[in-house]
């Protein structure tokens, strides 16, 4: 039985933490993987720190949480402390270095720094695509996920938005590719 790949992602409310995790889990399911996702939901929907958990594999457990992560993603400085306990030997660490400046707590995991906030703002002139950049980086690090099929899944998720604004599709795809290439 192949080990299940465990992902924790954490950031500020409004950064799209839940959407990223949900889309990754859904896309994995669409690709025939077993997947489960659970939010760490609380009353702090706005202005607080939020976490999400996803597991992907061949046989996914019914229990949605875990103690240690294989992929650990922090989108903000506060997130680093919040999910620090999920690190283990060999955890892959990805940070949004636009907001995570102090790496001292996680230095020994040699974090992959993605300056997603800056890239979104300066290269794409659309701050909101920052999470597409992060998603690209994450997907690169998840074993067994097919990139093209993942992008097709994205098109499916955002179909109604793309219908309204077709230029968004190109933008999202490019941002995703950018992140994928950086990780």
């Amino acid at each position, binding site marked *: 039985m192949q080990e299940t790949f465990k992902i924790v992602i954490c950031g500020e409310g409004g950064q799209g933490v839940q959407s990223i995790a949900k889309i990754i889990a859904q896309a994995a399911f669409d690709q025939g993987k077993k997947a489960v996702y659970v939010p760490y939901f609380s009353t702090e929907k706005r202005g607080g720190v939020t976490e999400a958990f996803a597991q992907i594999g061949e046989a996914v457990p019914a*229990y949605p949480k875990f103690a240690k992560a294989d992929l650990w993603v922090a989108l903000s400085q506060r997130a680093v402390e919040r999910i620090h306990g999920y690190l283990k030997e060999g955890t892959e660490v990805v940070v949004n270095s636009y907001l995570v400046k102090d790496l001292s707590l996680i230095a020994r995991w040699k974090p992959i720094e993605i300056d997603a906030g800056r890239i979104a703002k300066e290269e794409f002139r659309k701050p909101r695509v920052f999470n597409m950049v992060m998603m690209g980086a994450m997907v690169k690090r998840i074993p067994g996920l097919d990139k093209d099929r993942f992008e097709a899944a994205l098109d499916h998720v955002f179909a109604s938005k793309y219908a309204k604004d077709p230029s968004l599709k190109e933008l999202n795809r490019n941002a995703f590719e950018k992140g994928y290439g950086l990780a």
Partner: protein
Amino acid sequence: MREKQFLMGNEVLARAARAAGATGMYGYPITPGSEVLLWWAKEAGSEQGKKDGLVFLQAEDEIGASFMLSGAALAGTKAFTVTAGPGNVLMQDAFSMCEAMRIPIVAYINQRGGPSTSTVIYSQSEVTLTAFGGNGNGYRVVYAPSDLQELYDYGIKAFNTAWKYRFPTFVLADGYQAKMMGEVEIYDPHDRGIVMASTERYLLEEKRDRPIDQVVPKPEVHIRVQDGVEYSCYRNCLNLEEETLQVNMEIKDAWDKAAPEIEEHETYGDDRAETLIVAFGIVGAASKQAVDQLGGKARLFRPITLRPFPSAALKKAVKGAKRIIVPESAIAQLSRLVKETLYGVTDAPMIEHHRPSIGINVDEIVDLVRKHHV
């Protein structure tokens, strides 16, 4: 119709009610259950929903919602609600009435942190409230699903149990199950040969399959015929101790007959394993994985009905166990039921792992078993 979908637990519950033929949802928003209301509101307003006469009512509070639910069941409809924590406390008022008059309501409970408002997240600490929350000696059925598929299966079954046996019936889930997304097989129960129990009105029924005083305790129902029409009057305020005794004993007799048919449990793992884990719900799911990882050291007994508690099966399962471990996200709510069942049955020591209102991971259970394994 068979399809595997990637769905959130709350949507699974809502779809289960729809598949079971429920027509009315009476609720009040509360985390972690609100998505059930959202789904039902949308469904009720859809073309098909209107055609099927679906009712959605967002009440003034949980008290209102639960009594509307009772009224809808009295009107002979399959109706349900969803609630959690403080809402579960408020609804006990109506649930108690449903116990007294054998009103077949269905309630999905998504346990959240406690006591009081606490967290909106998760716990297993509404076992006592959900199973024994009424005043007096009421009886009710409580199913405790352990994963998304069981949310669907028992979400459907609850309606059948409620209407077949005429006891208020609960599906006791939790915030994790409510909010997690995963794979579920959505099916039409008819395609699986599941026969759905028929319903009957308590008020304004023209033709009954069975006399209503064989359901509602006799001192509570007064039937008269005028001009060939039967009129039923129900009360739950009784004057005499003797009447109350009779009501209690009639309900108990019905329960004693039904309970053996309703009880459900699951055993998992090598039955020679020394350690017996007793866990329910999502901790039961985690325990199952722990059993896999422990390679023969432990086995699992998982009560699926917390009421009626599968006592005979647990007594059987405990044979040969050197120790019993009870992990639960509560303080002594499950373990109290286990102790009550096993009193005088076994000498095996019981290790109670109480983690109120916080999740219990697979690794934690594995460590626990290893620590006590000698």
